[in-house]
């Protein structure tokens, strides 16, 4: 004879078994859901990596709107690619989509260096030797005039560097510098001369961050002289000024482009930016520019070239990572000058269609392309003299990438910097 409570016992046991079974099913369901999510994520990662490779290795180098297509003409392989012109470099935007999930990557693209053309020094053949004095060191290949290189006694200093003078292979240079890439120059001209009359001024907020997934934010400071202070600008932003612009040390610039008539960077500034000016760029003491930064004087208007000489000055103790260059569409009577001050370190490339002037203990970890070197004392001006300066091509990273603008690059494009991802 069964007890009357047996029914309750059976119901309770059935309930417990039911709960156990349900929890097992729910666990299996969530496990499967998670697996599918992980699998989809891996597939998205593969697809976005394919899109990145298409941007790097593809032959389409146009700057068009985002292009969406199926990678392999199968299900769940839609990607979108876009190339954005960003001064001397390009920005790539790659997205992969499956159902509601999207993975994106934005990154800076630059070119690898052509080791056969890369040199520590390229000095135009102006039929005069390069003269070295003081504790000067040039490490790497050098392209010089057939007159070669000599020791010199300047400012009461004899040459005290390596007896080989050039620690590398010497080649004969041409009468003119290897030219900058014409296509890139045209794009830079369009950037600098673009119509910005209706663009807004500086926002009242203390920071502005604009993703490369969004349209470019253009800020027009107009014709009033401005000093940027206590502001952070980052990403897809181009700042235009029709006159002099000062960047205070309290300004933070990250990957932005600045175009102005002349630019002064106050002492203590730290950032990564591309500065394009028409007349002068002055970088005060102890500033630090992170890679990939650019300082450039670009002159496309022949009438303005004759008015005033172009000058880029880096004063004492500046550390600059990137490229410094001058470009004039027509040669002027006053050649452009790049002044590298005392204890300044430049990691990258210096390209001058005029003079490059070094002061004591200046260091270039990379390459200098110039028409002439200049060394000035209070009383005397020496042309094609390098005194107490180090130019060492070997100190540059083996992974160094640079702009296609310069004549030392290959067609191979690589990722210079990851900018945004999810």
């Amino acid at each position, binding site marked *: 004879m069964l007890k009357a409570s047996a029914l309750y016992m059976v119901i309770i046991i059935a309930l417990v078994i039911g709960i156990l079974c349900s929890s097992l099913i729910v666990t299996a369901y969530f496990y499967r859901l998670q697996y599918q999510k992980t699998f989809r994520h891996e597939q998205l990662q*593969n697809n976005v990596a394919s899109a990145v490779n298409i941007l790097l290795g*593809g032959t389409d180098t146009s700057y068009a709107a985002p292009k969406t297509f199926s990678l392999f003409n199968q299900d769940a392989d839609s990607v979108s690619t876009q190339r954005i012109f960003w001064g001397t470099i390009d920005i790539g935007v790659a997205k992969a989509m499956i159902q509601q999930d999207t993975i994106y990557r934005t990154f800076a693209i630059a070119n690898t260096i052509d080791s056969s053309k890369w040199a520590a020094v390229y000095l135009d053949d102006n039929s005069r030797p390069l003269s070295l004095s003081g504790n000067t060191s040039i490490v790497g290949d050098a392209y010089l005039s057939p007159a070669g290189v000599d020791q010199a006694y300047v400012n009461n200093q004899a040459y005290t560097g390596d007896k080989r003078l050039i620690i590398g292979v010497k080649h004969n240079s041409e009468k003119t510098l290897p030219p900058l890439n014409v296509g890139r120059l045209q794009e830079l001209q369009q950037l600098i001369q673009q119509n910005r009359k209706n663009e807004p001024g500086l926002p009242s907020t203390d920071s502005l961050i604009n993703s490369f997934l969004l349209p470019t934010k253009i800020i027009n400071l107009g014709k009033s002289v401005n000093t940027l202070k206590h502001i952070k600008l980052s990403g897809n932003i181009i700042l235009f000024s029709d006159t002099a612009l000062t960047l205070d040390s309290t300004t933070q610039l990250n990957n932005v482009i600045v175009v102005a008539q002349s630019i002064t960077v106050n002492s203590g500034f730290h950032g990564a930016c591309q500065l394009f000016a028409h007349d002068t760029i002055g970088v005060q003491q102890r500033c630090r520019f992170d890679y990939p930064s650019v300082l450039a004087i670009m002159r496309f208007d022949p009438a303005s070239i004759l008015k005033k000489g172009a000058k880029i000055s880096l004063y004492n103790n500046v550390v600059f990572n990137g490229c410094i260059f001058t470009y004039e569409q027509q040669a002027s009577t006053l050649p452009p000058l790049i002044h590298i001050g005392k204890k300044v370190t430049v990691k990258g490339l210096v390209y001058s269609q005029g003079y490059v002037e070094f002061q004591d203990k200046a260091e270039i970890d990379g390459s200098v392309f110039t028409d002439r070197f200049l060394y000035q004392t209070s009383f005397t001006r020496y042309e094609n003299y390098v005194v107490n300066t180090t130019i060492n091509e070997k100190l540059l990273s083996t992974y160094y990438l640079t702009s296609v603008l310069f004549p030392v690059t290959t067609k191979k494009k690589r990722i210079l910097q990851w900018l945004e991802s999810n």
Partner: protein
Amino acid sequence: MVVFGIAMMIYANIVQSSLSVTKIRAQAILNQTLQADETSANSSSTTFTVDNLNIEQTVKNYNNEPNLTEIDLAAYDANGQQLITLHKVIINKNE
């Protein structure tokens, strides 16, 4: 009988769509193969066997782009049933 039939159908459906260790292992092998292809300068179309799984690798030019290569990988079990596929576009090492 009807209930038994429905139960068997549900069971078969669940077993077919459930995760299998073989499938996960196949995916790991394909990922590893893909990584090796990306670092290698001369990948070619081939078929090979790893842990009783037949891996079919097809290497071809992507979209007539001279510097891009498409790699298609497929894993098959002992019965010849396709378990998983993987596709990726890579940059030629010899670019």
